Every structure is written in C-alpha cells, then in structure tokens.
C-alpha cells in the first residue's frame, strides 16, 4: 500500500508493523509526530503496546531498558537535548545487551536554541555502543525501523535510526507500507534468550570487578563485529521480501570516479543530483552514502574507495577541536591502504544547525577538491563551506 507520509509517521508505521510491545517516550520538537501517531495507534487499537508517557527522556530510556530486560520489543524516539539527557542510560542499554530501538530526529544542540538539523546529537553518542543507521528517504526510514528490530534482537545490541529534522521528519513522501503479514513473517515476536523471569531468576548488571569487566566489553565489541554480517543478511532478506535494500554503505556512480563524495542523511539526495549534473558534463564524480555509522563499515569503505584519487567528505557535524566526524573516521579507516591506493581526503563542514546544503554548496566543495588535485599535500583542517564572512 502506497501512502504519502512524513518521515516521523514513517517511523510510527514501522514501529506499528514491527509490533513493538512497550513504548516509552517524551515529546521534543521535531520528534513529536512520531509519538503522537504511536499514541493514536495505541489508542485506536492498531498497536497493542503499553505506551508509558514518561516525564523525561532519561526515564524514557530507563523504562525501555527495564521493558527490554523483561523480554519485550521496546521503542522510543527523541531528538537533540533529549538524546543527550538519555546518555547515561544509552550506555546501560548497550552494555546490558538490550535490543532497544530508538529513532532520533537529528537536531542541532543548544545553545543557541536550534530545532533544525545537524548530526552532533547522535554523533556525540558514538561511543555509547549503539548501532547507528542514517536514513535518506522516508521509505528508508520505515524500512530501517523494521530492520532495526531484527538486527538489534539478533546481536543483542540497541539500534538508533537517524533522520534529519524537517528535511525528513516533516517532509511528506510516498512510502510503500508493507503488509502486516509480510512483516510478521520477516520479524516474529521477540523471544529473549535471557530475561527477568520469576520462574528462572537471574541478576542483570551486577557489580563487575576488574576480573570480569573487560570480557563483558569484549563480548559487546564482538557483537558489534557480528552486526556487519547480520545487517547484510537482514537487508538481503528484506530485499527478497520487499524488493528494497540499502546496505551499510551505497556507492553511486563510483565507476571510474576521480572524486567521490562521502555523505550521510538527506545531504545524500542533494549530492546525487550534483553527481548526475557532473556526470552529464562528463566529469568523473561519484558518491558513497554511509548508512551505518556504528559499527563503522571499514571493510566496505576500503573496498569502495581504494584506488579512488580523491574523496570529499561532507560532514553535517563538528567535533570541536578536531574535525568533521565522518571525515575523521574515514581517514582512520583508509590510513593503512597502500599509498598508491589511498585517496586524498578533504573534509568539509556544511549545514550545521539546519543551514541549507544546496547543490551550490556541494559544487563548491567539489571545486575546492578538484583545484587541490590528488597530488597536493594532505588537508590540514576541514574547510567550512557556506559560512558568512
């Protein structure tokens, strides 16, 4: 069934079709329609979930970890300050190996107050141990939401679905809504291996001395490693059933490319347009979209980018005192490629706080990289594009 839905409602539809059992959420712009629609779905009986209307995001994630530990499929959604308030409990979900799914509407962090998009809220949760999937379209949002539960429950790690404020959250697009029966076949009811069960009592999260703590983190890291292959399988099964797939990364016109743009989120759509224009002019420009940021798809990116002369990374985020975060991660991922295969990487900071990343902005990034050429010295610091003088 095709429906025209906003990105936020695409999340809600995904959660409903996944038959989430416990939802705990607190409203924040621009996430509100996600939870409003879910409240409506619970209210009219389309979704048989318990929806706990908590008094803060911190309590939202706390309720989610409790519900997930008790064996149920659990969901929350938030944005910016809300995600930051959850930070402590995000660690708890991941360290506790609890497959909670969270949708975050990427919103810039205050001060100054901003409700507009950038990625600093989710990227500053990089080290909490959550799998992160960045979406480009509302269809991808819906599909990723359902995929996320399967991925999370297979590796026992939480998954964050990420979509840009307004460009996706409040923008309506036609979305193919899968049939419930097909989703049920893809995603059966969660059966947790271990849960809070009075018939089989266990303690979760007890004091871990130096003699045992490190192995717990190692198991967590191994689960992250496993997530690469699990995502591939989940995505492949989704493709067989529904005809769509996204991968951990996607190459677009990378064949013979001399410059490859690396993007995430909705900037990708604009970049596709720029790549099309370049190709029409005979310029060898391509694009790699990074959908999965954690675990970082190092092997796939090395495969995709080895031998490409130049890479331009568009970062809608900034790690103050260092650089754009995708660029930094990519530099580390490609560092030990043989030098003749290692691209020159240029980082560009764009679109912070919801500033438009127009085709002209992306063209400027490309031009700077083109002018520098593949043989010049490595870029010392990222270039901020689209800032006023």
């Amino acid at each position, binding site marked *: 069934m095709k429906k025209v839905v906003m990105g936020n409602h695409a999340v809600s539809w995904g959660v409903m079709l996944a038959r989430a*059992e416990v939802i705990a959420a607190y409203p924040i712009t621009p996430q509100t329609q996600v939870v409003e629609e879910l409240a409506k779905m619970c209210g009219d009986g389309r979704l048989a979930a318990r929806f706990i209307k908590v008094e803060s995001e911190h*309590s939202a994630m*706390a309720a989610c*970890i*409790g519900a997930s530990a008790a064996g149920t499929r659990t969901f929350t959604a938030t944005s910016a300050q809300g995600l930051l308030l959850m930070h402590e409990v995000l660690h*708890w979900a991941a360290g506790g190996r609890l497959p909670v799914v969270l949708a975050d509407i990427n919103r810039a962090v205050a001060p100054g107050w901003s409700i507009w998009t950038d990625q600093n809220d989710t990227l500053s949760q990089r080290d909490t141990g959550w799998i992160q999937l960045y979406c480009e379209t509302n269809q991808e949002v819906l599909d990723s939401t359902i995929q996320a539960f399967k991925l999370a429950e297979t590796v026992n790690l939480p998954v964050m679905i990420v979509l840009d404020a307004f460009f996706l959250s409040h923008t309506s697009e036609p979305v193919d809504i899968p049939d419930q029966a097909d989703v049920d076949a893809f995603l059966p009811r969660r059966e947790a291996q271990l849960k809070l069960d009075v018939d089989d*009592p266990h303690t979760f999260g*007890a*004091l*871990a001395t130096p003699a045992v703590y490190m192995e717990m983190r190692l198991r967590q890291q191994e689960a992250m490693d496993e997530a690469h292959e699990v995502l591939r399988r989940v995505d492949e099964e989704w493709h067989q059933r529904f005809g769509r797939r996204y991968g951990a990364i996607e190459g677009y016109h990378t064949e013979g490319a001399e410059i490859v743009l690396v993007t995430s989120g909705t900037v990708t759509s604009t970049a596709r347009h720029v790549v099309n224009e370049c190709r029409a002019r005979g310029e060898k420009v391509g694009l790699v979209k990074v959908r999965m940021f954690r675990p970082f798809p190092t092997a796939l990116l090395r495969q995709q980018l080895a031998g490409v002369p130049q890479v331009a990374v568009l970062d809608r985020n900034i790690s103050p005192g260092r650089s754009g975060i995708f660029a930094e991660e990519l530099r580390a991922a490609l560092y030990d490629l043989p030098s003749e295969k290692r691209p020159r990487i240029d980082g560009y900071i764009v679109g912070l706080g919801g500033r438009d990343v127009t085709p002209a902005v992306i063209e400027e990034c490309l031009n700077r990289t083109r002018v520098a050429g593949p043989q010049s010295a490595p870029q010392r610091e990222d270039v901020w594009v689209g800032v006023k003088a």
Partner: protein
Amino acid sequence: MSQPLIKDLIPREELLDSGHLACPGCGGALAMRLVLKGLGEKTVVSLPACCWTIIAGPWPQSSLHVPLFHTAFETAASTAAGIKAALSVRGDDDTTVLAWAGDGGTFDIGIQALSGAAERNDDILYCCYDNEAYMNTGIQRSSATPWGAWTTTTPAGQPKSHPKKDLLAILAAHGIPYGATACVAYPADLMAKVRKAKTIRGTRFLQILAPCPPGWKTADDETIELGRLAVQSRVFPLLEVEDGERWRFSMEHAGTPVKDYIRRQGRFRHLTEEDVERIQKQVDARWKTLERRVQASADL
C-alpha cells in the same frame, strides 16, 4: 485473645541468602529480607545505585532468589515502570515489580522518576530503605539526613542545617493509593504493610527506616533498639496514607524523650543540650501536624 507470635507472622522462607555483603547490623539488609518474605518469589527487583548494589553480590553471584535488574542511580521507578509494562503486555499482571532504592536514590536524584511514576500511578511497589545519608559512598548528607546530623559533607562544625524532607507527604500529594512508613524494628507492622501493599494496584510507596551502624556511628547490635527509639520518640512515626488523604498512625507512639534516641548516636555527638532541645521541639511540632492530618482523615 493472645497476641500472634512474630515467628507465626513472618514466613520462614528466605529469599535473601546469608553471605550477602551488608555490614554487620545493616538495617537495609534486614528490610529487604522482610519485604521479600512478604512479597514472595513472584517479585522482580529494580535496583539503582545504593548500598544494595553491593549487598546483592558481585557478578556472577546473587544473594537474592528473585530476578534483579541493576539500573542507573535515578531510575528505580522508571525502570520498574518499564518492567511492569513488559510483564503486563505479555499477560503477567500478578508479579510484583519492586523498586528498591536508598534515600539518596529516592529523596534526591530519583525523585523526578518517582514523581513521574506516582503521577501515572504505575503499578509498582517502591520501597525506600532510609538510612538518612549516602552511606554507600561513605556517609554524605542527603535530603533525608536529619537536622543537626554529622556526615562527611556536613562536618561537626557545620552539621546538617535543614530538616529531613517529608517524602511521604510528597508522595501522598500525588494521590497514590497507598503510602506508609515502617521500620525494621517493627517487623510485624512492616509485614502487614507489605502484605497490604501487595494487594493494591497502582503506585505503592514504603519508606522503611533502616539504621546504619557505620553511618550513624552506633554499635552493630543496636539497630533494632535504635529503630524502636526512633519510632517511640516520634522522630520517625509509623504512618499509613491511603489515596493521598486518609492518614493513620499504625501503632501507638509513646513519645519518649528525643534525647534518649539522639544521645545513642555518634553522628549527633557534637550537639549541645540546646540543639537536642531544638530537635525535641521540631519533633513535637511535626507530631502535632501529623495528628491534625490523622484527625482530619477521621471525617473522610
């Protein structure tokens, strides 16, 4: 009619093992032991950071025979709400979900989550074992610490300068179906309250005074006696409140001199006679307030 014997009132079945890691004479360990006896094995515990994080035992050991989820300091109530929702959505409405927190996790850092759960009337039993300071971190003041008490952050030269927060009244103001104070020194009273709370649906709150020998600077074998003195001196009256408005005392309180309680504890050693007199006046004034509440309830 003869009084029932304590041994007949309290189940013999133990859900807390010996070998747990509490200090000798710990009121908090005794409180858990008694409450679990009252609730039985169909209980799941949500446990934030507190002394009990240690008492429960290091991984992979556990001193409890019920499922236990360790959670973040300020999340006893919200985690419990999530556990309850999960059990309920899968058809289990019988299991008691017990949030078990110290006074720091309840009066201070966890009060927002507790207030949220109470406002929603989430179906949980929240027990605060109240030892009147942050004991697990080495005796720092909490908002449950009484006026005049020494702690490491309220040293004798500058002891606690504010009275203890009236948490039961705060919970009552949420209109929860059942709230009560109890003390490990009165196990029959405590057990009756636990049993009553178990039968009620919605948010139930128990504040259990749990004397702490290292924190109160008392001997290991004085816990029960101090609990009795706290109650009988009306420093810690035993109360119940239903639906946030029907208050009653659950036993007679003799009104013994407060100084008999205060002078037994090292944490009050620095107090002058005038200070102790001031505490007596605070206790007397609060007792009058409570009596008014109880009397007003008689008409309801």
